């Protein structure tokens, strides 16, 4: 008895087991509820965009719809294809959802206690874990032993490989200012500098946004599950709760993508003028910081949804085109030009200084003149230069020359074939 008590009240256990467990449970509860309501939000947003009402029956304004959906999904029959690989088929959605949830550990939802952990390789951790999550999709598509899921899985893997690169490279730009991979340090850098990195790095933000949409398999990049072509893509054969795990993973990924974008580009939980509260009312500040973070994330999620319900879907080869011919060159150009801008600002003009602090050294632009220089350079030089570089690289592509595209892309018709004869 005493032993048990000692184990329970051991400060090491307290610090490394019980406290994290409680935090994890609370976080999971909140996030999973949130994700359920994200589905509701998606349905409502799509309905309003389409001049409809959306779910209205379960509860007032359909607010209990996620609950009803959950019950429905739990009660549904769990089908496994007869010729499929049963073990992998069952394992794949779990893998997808676990990877999505693990990432939540390092996201700074707010100041202080609201950040669960802060590891100094936060961004790398997120990028690496979330690329493992794609394995769940590939395995699920493969294990279904069906052609549509297989096609979806293959599309998904190719898409992930190309957009992961663009996503990671887009983050390099802001990191040059923050000089840290720790998520909290990035937020602190922006807060201390009274700036959002969106202003310094518009190109990187745009590319990150697009890559984030692509990462989360949403229209216009929802090729893995393109419902018109591949029925439902990789989860065609899934049903019931396993299907909902994929769904959960997708929406969690959307949450994570926007959370990273908010942290890196939009100042995370910080907000101008809010800092004054910190010394006097730390509790209130924490709460407000969570709120600020949530509002920013939801604005981005709304934009994701808005994209989805406005745009048509890319074709597979166009998606690859966009990834490799536009996004990756743009990120590389962005890194190069940003480096040059920082060099000039730092060495020639002396507008910046590197300071150390709680979270290691970072680049600080103290004066208004320095800020004006960096913002001006970003919008007046960085954006046009990137476009020009892209234009030179892609001068033959269809975005410039539809006529050329027509000549290039006319399908090669086989002269004769033995299978069906003429027509």
């Amino acid at each position, binding site marked *: 008895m005493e032993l048990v008590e000692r184990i329970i009240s051991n400060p090491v256990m307290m610090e490394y087991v019980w406290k994290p467990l409680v935090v994890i449970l609370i976080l999971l509860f909140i996030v999973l509820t949130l994700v359920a309501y994200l589905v509701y939000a998606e349905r409502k947003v799509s309905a309003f965009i389409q001049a409809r009402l959306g779910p209205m*029956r379960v509860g007032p304004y359909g607010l209990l719809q996620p609950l009803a959906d959950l019950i429905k999904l739990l009660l549904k029959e769990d089908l496994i294809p007869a010729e499929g690989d049963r073990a992998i088929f069952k394992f794949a959605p779990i893998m997808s959802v676990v990877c999505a949830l693990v990432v939540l550990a390092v996201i700074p939802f707010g100041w202080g206690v609201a950040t669960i952990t802060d590891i100094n390789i936060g961004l790398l951790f997120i990028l690496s874990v979330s690329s493992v999550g794609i394995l769940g999709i590939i395995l699920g598509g493969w294990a279904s032993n069906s052609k549509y899921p297989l096609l979806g899985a293959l599309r998904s893997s190719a898409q992930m490989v190309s957009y992961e690169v663009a996503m990671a490279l887009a983050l390099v730009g802001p990191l040059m200012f923050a000089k840290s991979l720790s998520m909290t340090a990035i937020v602190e850098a922006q807060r201390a500098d009274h700036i959002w990195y969106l202003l310094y790095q518009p190109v990187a933000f745009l590319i990150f946004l697009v890559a984030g949409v692509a990462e989360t398999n949403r229209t216009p990049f929802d090729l893995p599950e393109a419902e018109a072509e591949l029925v439902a893509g990789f989860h065609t054969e899934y049903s019931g709760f396993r299907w909902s795990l994929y769904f959960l993973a997708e929406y969690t990924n959307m949450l994570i993508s926007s959370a990273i974008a908010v942290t890196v580009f939009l100042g995370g939980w910080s907000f101008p003028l809010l800092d004054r509260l910190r010394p006097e009312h730390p509790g209130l500040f924490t709460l407000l910081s969570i709120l600020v973070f949530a509002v920013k994330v939801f604005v981005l999620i709304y934009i994701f949804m808005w994209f989805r319900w406005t745009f048509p879907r890319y074709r597979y080869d166009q998606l690859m085109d966009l990834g490799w011919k536009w996004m990756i060159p743009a990120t590389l150009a962005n890194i190069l030009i940003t480096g040059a801008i920082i060099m000039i600002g730092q060495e020639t003009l002396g507008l910046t200084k590197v300071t150390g602090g709680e979270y290691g050294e970072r680049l600080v632009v103290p004066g208004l003149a320095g800020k004006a220089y960096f913002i001006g350079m970003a919008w007046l030089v960085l954006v046009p230069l990137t*476009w020009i570089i892209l234009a030179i690289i892609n001068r033959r592509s269809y975005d*410039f020359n*539809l006529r050329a595209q027509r000549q290039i892309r006319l399908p090669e018709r086989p002269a004769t074939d033995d299978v069906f004869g003429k027509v």
Partner: protein
Amino acid sequence: MVAHRRRNWKQAISRFLLLDLIKGMIVTFKWQAPSKCYTVQYPKVRPRIGERFRGAPRLNRDPETGESLCIACNLCAVACPENLITVTEEVREYLDEASGKVKKKRFLADYLYDTSRCMFCGYCQDVCPTYAIELTQEFELAIYRRKDFAWTWEMLENGIDQPVYTR
């Protein structure tokens, strides 16, 4: 007239500034106001049905005497492209009040209308000389048993019991 596409510098610049995408997004954003919603909450709110709507069949009665208007002339059965109406007639004697004599006349014995095959073309009501058979505005025809699709004379006169949903 040739529906041609414009390709010029203006368009190229607008593509660089993503204007083609933003314009579309503005349109979808504009429609979000709840006042522009087109949904009719069906079981709560009944949709407006056109006056000439051809829905569930009905056999009309004479509003004064309460007798069926049908004279068993069989025209509707002939007019039906699907041959789904079965009119059974019987010849009965009755007392003619005007002359006070006993006369013989055809009366309706049974009327069967198979709604499962009905195309709601309206030929039966067009051809009816006494406006007895009529396609009403009732459109809720779902039924649990397949044999209940065959509407008898009684069902045709009184309508069928449809559950009324309120929410």
